[in-house]
């Protein structure tokens, strides 16, 4: 696996991780609102 694929993978992981975090936060906020 070359460098480019490595960077792509890391970027992807960062994005998915970020998404998961914000999504959980969103769910928590929705619960608080109801």
């Amino acid at each position, binding site marked *: 696996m070359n460098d480019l*694929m490595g960077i792509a993978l890391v970027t*992807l992981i960062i*994005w998915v991780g970020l998404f998961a975090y*914000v999504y959980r936060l*969103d769910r928590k906020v929705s619960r608080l609102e109801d």
Partner: protein
Amino acid sequence: MRGSVILKWLLLVWLAGVILAAFFYVHPAEGFKGESSRIVFFHVPMAWIAVLAFLISCIASVMYLRRRDPKDDIRASVSAGLGLLFAVLATVTGSVFAKIMWGAYWNWDPRQTSITILLLIYAAYLALRGAVADPERRAALAAVYAILAFVTVPFLVFVVPRIYWSLHPDTIINTRGTNEFDSRYTQVLMASLAGFTGLYIWLYTLGCRIEAIRHRRRQEVL
């Protein structure tokens, strides 16, 4: 499933697709050293969002001064926080790009100067908010400062770059009207812009909801 949930999952897939496309679907562009042209897919949308967030912050500020609705103040401050985040990201990605292309992380070329001033504006805005205790005073003063900062920006963006030679690559749609990049590049760039805008909208609405809850809690305590 509710509409907003679908949209959020769509965003996940969309930006994941953009990331993959940026690395595997697009060929490195001419005139760029090595693979550095790939950074542009992230750097440009981040800079765009930094500016968009500033715009929204200013519009919300004007609205606040007109109707004194606390929600407008919330919108202004949330957008400013996000704007700062994206401005920092844009600066970082930009300097990585600069390092690859021209050997130095920082050159003070007009675009780098402009993003620095935007960063300073955001930092100043948030510092001001932190220094005023009374909520209504804080909202009013912050709104005024946002507008003051906004009127300074056109001078930077339009005038400073013209005066001296810039290292910064010309904007994609350049003055000659021809595209320097192939269509794949443009597609992915547009897709990335759309995706980042979607991300901003999500973070912005989420931030406003959180602040609204905090605001409500404070009112209840009083």
